[in-house]
């Protein structure tokens, strides 16, 4: 799923400057599952903004709502009336949801209250790990179901670099947390599958034109179009 983190409160609060009315809009799909931007989190953020405004003696009407999915027109129809009441919307949807809102309700001001960060999965409760780069050319059939494009810090396609040590990547996270070396994982699982020779063959350079390097992507399913 898509994961996102709420922006720092001060950054969000600054977006309300010059406004008297603000709607916080959550999204009850991906960002709700990662406990960032669902209806509950939208309600909490609305309360925080309201309290802060009151503490400053500022008159600010703050309400919240949530769409089942901000990224689909029909679900936005369901919250259109509510959105219509407010000149400013703080969207807690992912980057797709925020843009869908901005487009649907243009030229209304729709601002992002979250930073969308990855396509990931909850490895354990409250811990999400990146799993997909949406690169447009999936190779994991040959890499034991482990994506080297996004899980190797250098997106290497031919095995680990010299910085792989004891199963760990040379790169540590922002809080000094350790990262698994994707290629060490690939090697071990390929061995378990008896397919390690897949790592001996030289893989050609990746075709990044299928990723965002090729420009904004568009997918059309002709067979699914209405007749």
């Amino acid at each position, binding site marked *: 799923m898509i994961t996102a983190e709420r922006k720092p409160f001060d950054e969000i609060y600054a977006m309300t400057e010059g406004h008297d009315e603000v709607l916080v809009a959550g999204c009850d799909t991906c960002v709700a599952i990662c406990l960032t931007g669902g209806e509950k989190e939208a309600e909490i953020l609305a309360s925080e903004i309201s309290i802060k405004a009151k503490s400053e003696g500022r008159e600010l009407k703050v309400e919240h709502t949530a769409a089942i999915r901000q990224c689909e027109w029909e679900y936005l129809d369901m919250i259109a009336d509510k959105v219509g009441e407010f000149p400013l919307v703080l969207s807690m949807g992912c980057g797709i949801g925020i843009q869908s809102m901005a487009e649907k309700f243009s030229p209304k001001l729709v601002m992002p209250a979250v930073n969308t960060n990855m396509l990931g999965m909850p490895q354990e409760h409250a811990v999400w790990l990146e799993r997909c780069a949406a690169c447009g050319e999936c190779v994991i059939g040959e890499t034991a179901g482990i994506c080297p494009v996004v899980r190797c810090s250098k997106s290497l396609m031919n095995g*680990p670099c010299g*910085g792989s040590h004891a199963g760990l990547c040379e790169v540590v996270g922002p809080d000094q947390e350790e990262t698994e070396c994707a290629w060490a994982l690939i090697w071990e699982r390929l061995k378990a599958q008896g397919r390690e020779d897949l790592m001996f063959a030289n893989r050609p350079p990746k075709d990044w034109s299928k990723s965002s390097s090729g420009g904004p992507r568009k997918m059309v399913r002709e067979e699914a179009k209405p007749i």
Partner: protein
Amino acid sequence: MSEALTLKAGSNLEKVLTAGKFAVTGECGPPKSADASVIEKKVKLLIGYVDAVNVTDNQTAVVRVSSVASAYLAQQNGIEAVMQMTCRDRNRLAMQADILGASVLGLKNILCLTGDHVSFGNHPQAKGVHDLDSISLIRMYKDMRDEKRFQSGEEMDVAPPLYIGCAENPFGDPLEFRAMRLKKKVVAGADFVQTQCIFNIPRFKQWMEAVRALGVHQEIKILAGITPIKSAGMANYMKKFVPGMDVPQEIIDRIAAKEKGEAQQAEGKKLAVEMIKELAEVEGVAGVHIMAVEWEAAVPEIVEAAGLMPRPAVA
């Protein structure tokens, strides 16, 4: 005449290695400012003591004078360069443009590297490029040289004559894959390899055994990496903070047992000489690559004491 025909680039390094002489390469890190005199000073220390000098490419992801310009300056100052090229800072267009640029400036030796991750350097917010990895970089340069083709397949009129090098870390994991990784680089087109600095000789020998088992030592010239230790503090730093380094505690203890300063430096040089002599005996080792980080002045003494002087003059 026949030998000349078999040379790929005709560089001094290639000639020394092809003639079966034990090669010595050095290393020079370009400065972090527009100061050509630093490069001149560093390379002048090495003239006559090494067959070629590596010129690093934003090493440890820190911005420096570009490797193309520095390698050219090194050659202008009388020493052949091995220009390093990482996949971190350039996409395939830039890597091809720079190698053509290097070639028209007379540079022949190229070392293809993945590159340290941007998070280690002085611009951790930069976008790491990694369009290609080092193996596809090697292949791209080989195809430019041998097939006169760009990576896209498009043809060019004049191929760059290149002697293509790579690096390998015998101390990286998984150990059982490391020799195979070198083989992949040979298949891609690497002519020579310079290894990560060796401090753990038993593990290096274990890796060489695996390399020989694959027959790779007969297909590529292997230069063993040596870094003279200037102080126990430096050894500790490398052990803890430099990715991919394997510095056994006994090495650190040996240096630390001497008094700080000149005594530790002397011990570091002595250790380097001992290691060169031991590594030269390992079957398949064709030379040494001495990376005296910010200590280029130590190289002449080490090369001399290791019995590697005079350097061969190969026509």
